Structures are given as structure tokens and as C-alpha cells.
């Protein structure tokens, strides 16, 4: 045993010494960002119809589906002089508490109008918990940062319809 112990140990030392001169494989995160997967579930996004009306009709199905109970919807009637959504009612208040959200994607599955999808944004840390409660205006706004997305054709799982068509 002892006569193979020492050469084996020295071999280990040679390996670690050789590694010093190799280029590290670490990706320097804030400078280099890996593209996210096409089906990545990041920050939520509320969508509009082409004519500018909101897709969300305030049905609260997303809130019902949410396992973390982080979505709050308060619906109100559309009136002829205040038409917000395409349906009968609209979401007067639509809030997502992102400090509770687990990014499971059940809300986008539950939505009958594909009004809410999970986008690609993942740099959403804040210094205060209050800042993590996203209101309707924030969710309707487009993401500030451009997140690189990997080419979907290199993966064999299909990208869901609502990811691309809402």
C-alpha cells in the first residue's frame, strides 16, 4: 500500500501545480452574463392588446393558483368613459409581492387571456422589502435591462405559446 501511496500523492501535487497556469473557467458575473434559457421564469410581465387595452380582466385566477399567495387583485367595472381592459371588468389593483413569489409559473398557466407571463429579468434585488411589491404600472412596463436569451432551437423542449405570443 505504502509504495503506491507516495507516487499517487505526488501525482496529486502535480495536478494542482499544473492548474495554476491554466485559465480559470469562472465567468465574471456582472461583466459577463450567461444567456438565460428560453423557458426561463423571471420577473412577471403584464401584457396589452394591440389596441392598447389591458389583457387582464381582473378574474383573480392567477391569485387563486398562486401557491405562495403573493398576488393581490382588486377588480373594478369597465365604464364607457373609463375602459381599461377588453373584458367586462379590469384589475384596479394588481400587485405581486416578489419577496414571496417562488417563480413557479402557475399564474401564467392559470391566466385565460395570457395577460401575465414570466419574463426573463432576474436582477430584481432591492434594499427594502417594500420595494419588492410590484404594482400594476411596474408590471406593465417593459424591462429596463436587456437580458440575453439562448437560442431556443438548441433545446428540444418547445417554448410555450404564451411565452412568445403575448
Amino acid at each position, binding site marked *: 500500500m505504502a509504495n503506491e501511496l507516495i507516487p499517487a*500523492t505526488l501525482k*496529486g*501535487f502535480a*495536478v*494542482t*501545480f499544473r*492548474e*495554476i497556469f*491554466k485559465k*480559470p*473557467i*469562472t465567468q*465574471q458575473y456582472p461583466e459577463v452574463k450567461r444567456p438565460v434559457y428560453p423557458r426561463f421564469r423571471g420577473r412577471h410581465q403584464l401584457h396589452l392588446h394591440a389596441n392598447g387595452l389591458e389583457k387582464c380582466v381582473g378574474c383573480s385566477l392567477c391569485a387563486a393558483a398562486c401557491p405562495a399567495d403573493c398576488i393581490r387583485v382588486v377588480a373594478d367595472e369597465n365604464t364607457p368613459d373609463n375602459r381599461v381592459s377588453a373584458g367586462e371588468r379590469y384589475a384596479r389593483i394588481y400587485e405581486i409581492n416578489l419577496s414571496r413569489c417562488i417563480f413557479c409559473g402557475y399564474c401564467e398557466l392559470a391566466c385565460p387571456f395570457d395577460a401575465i407571463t414570466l419574463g426573463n429579468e432576474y436582477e430584481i434585488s432591492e434594499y427594502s422589502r417594500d420595494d419588492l411589491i410590484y404594482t400594476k404600472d411596474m408590471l406593465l412596463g417593459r424591462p429596463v435591462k436587456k437580458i440575453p436569451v439562448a437560442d431556443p432551437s438548441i433545446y428540444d423542449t418547445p417554448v410555450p405559446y404564451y411565452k412568445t405570443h403575448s
Partner: protein
Amino acid sequence: MDPWWIDAIKGFLIINIVLVCFAYTTWLERKLLSRMQGRFGPNRAGPFGLLQPIADLVKLVRKEAFTPMSASAKLYIAAPVLSTFTALLAFAVIPFGAGWHIWKWDVSGVVVDAPISLVLIFALGSLGVYGFIIGGWASDSKYSTLGAMRTCAQLVSYEVSLALAVLGVVIQAGTLNLSEIVHQQGTQFWFFGPQFVGLVVFFLAGTAETSRPPFDLPEGDTEIVAGYHTEYSGMRWGLFQMSEYVHMITLSALGVTLFFGGWHGPWAPLGPLWFFLKLLVVVFIFIWMRASLPRLRYDQLMRFGWKILLPVATLNAFVTALVVVAVN
């Protein structure tokens, strides 16, 4: 004999140089270790992460110095101070240069030129163990106590082999004075040749003595969180770390002094620069070992210390004594 104020200036300079060395040993360790593991290591604070030790210091000083409710407060605070103090003190007897003639004073290349400097280093090292034991015990936590117990057992068992490994050099040089040992190596040969067995035993026992991997059982993080300093935070934890690294530097310096001719170089009389370069090589080997070897099991550690290192060291001292008697 220098006037007292020259000693004071030398002591002040050396202690600060050792502390800077400690800070940049942590940087070097993190950098080398990460390169060996295919990572970058610290590279955010300053160029090549060179300001990382300063950033670490600022962080440690500003962190809360937490005291566990059931800890015995006085001992809890005294322990890191004691271990750092003894670790720093040991460097005083290491000769780092030939001595210089500055204006009208002769300045020797060592802070304290004690005739028993080698014994002093071992004595201080043993005193430093008290810091670890007291720290672990005063924390009143099971992991700290276990870590302190392990530290105590390991350090005591390896100190025997360490002292016996050095005995060969002492017999050959016929003195316990480090400056004298260095001086002898400058005039004849370096002791790593005739005392090669002693060097190997010294290095292995020294690794265990400074609880560096693969002998880092006192703080075996997978088993007992962090050993004796589990309950420490902030700069008190920093002091324990400092004592460990300074201990490693002192032991490397002792190895360089005893086996590799101290501040003598193979050519070019550069003095302290040679000493520093040799020190760097030894510290590099310590870090290299950390990257390459897995931690020993406790029974393996004890068996290795008592059944392999101790007999080899004893035999080495015995044979050296016989040869010295035969030659003279």
C-alpha cells in the same frame, strides 16, 4: 549590544512587517488556492484583488463582536489576545539579516538575540495553545469544546516530534542560538542536506502544529463547524486567524533558519531578501499542500504522529548524535 531604543524600533518594524506578511499571506493563499481550483480568487478590491486584505480588515472591525450569553466573558476575550500575542512574540528571535552598521551604531539582524532562542520559540508556541484551549472552553459550546480538545491533543502530540526533529540540527550546530546556527550554515553547508530526515519530520509536524491542511482537524469544518473559534466573530475571530497565520509564518521562518541557511543566499549577499524569498517558497508549499491533500481522520492523525513521526525523529536525533560523536 544595541541601546534599548534600537531594539524598540526593530521590534516595531518587524511586528508590522510580519502583520503585513500575514495580510498578504491570506491574499496569496486565496489567490493560489483558487487558481489551483480553476477559479479567479479575489479580484474585485484593487488590481488583482490586492486591496482584499484591507477590505477584509475593515469588514472584520466593523462586525459585531458577539459574546455568547453563557460564555465566561473575561477568558473569552483574553483567549484570542493571548494566542495572537504569543504568535507575534515568537518572531522576535528569528534572525533575518547579517546586521548593519548605521552611522555610529551596530544594528544586529535580530530583535532579541537570546542564547536559548530555539527553546523560547517552542515555549511560546506551547503557551499559544492555552489561547486555543481557553477560547474553546470559555465559549461554552460543544463544538468549541470539541475543537479545543482536538487542538490540545494534536498540538501536544506533534510538539514532541517537532522538538525532536530540531534536535538533530541542535546537536550538529552545538548551540540553541538561532543567529549562531545561521552563522554556521553560512560558513559551511546548509543543514537540509545532512538533516534531510529532520527537515521532512519538521515540515510534517510543523504542518500539524499550525493546524494547516491536511492536519486541520482542530477546525475540521465538516465535523465541528470551526473548532475552538466557532463562537467568535468580528475582530476576535480575526485575531485567532491572525495567530494561526503568524504561527505558520514563524514556523516557516524557523524552518528556513534551521535548514536553509536563514538569510544566507547561494550567491549575491542580499540578506533579508533571501530570507523573504525562502519564506515565500515555504509558504507556497503550505498552500500547495492545502490544495492537494484531503484531511486526515483523527485516528490516522494520532497514529501518524506517534507511530511514524516520533520514532523517525528520535532515530534521526540518535543517529546524528552518534555521527557527531564519531566525527569529533
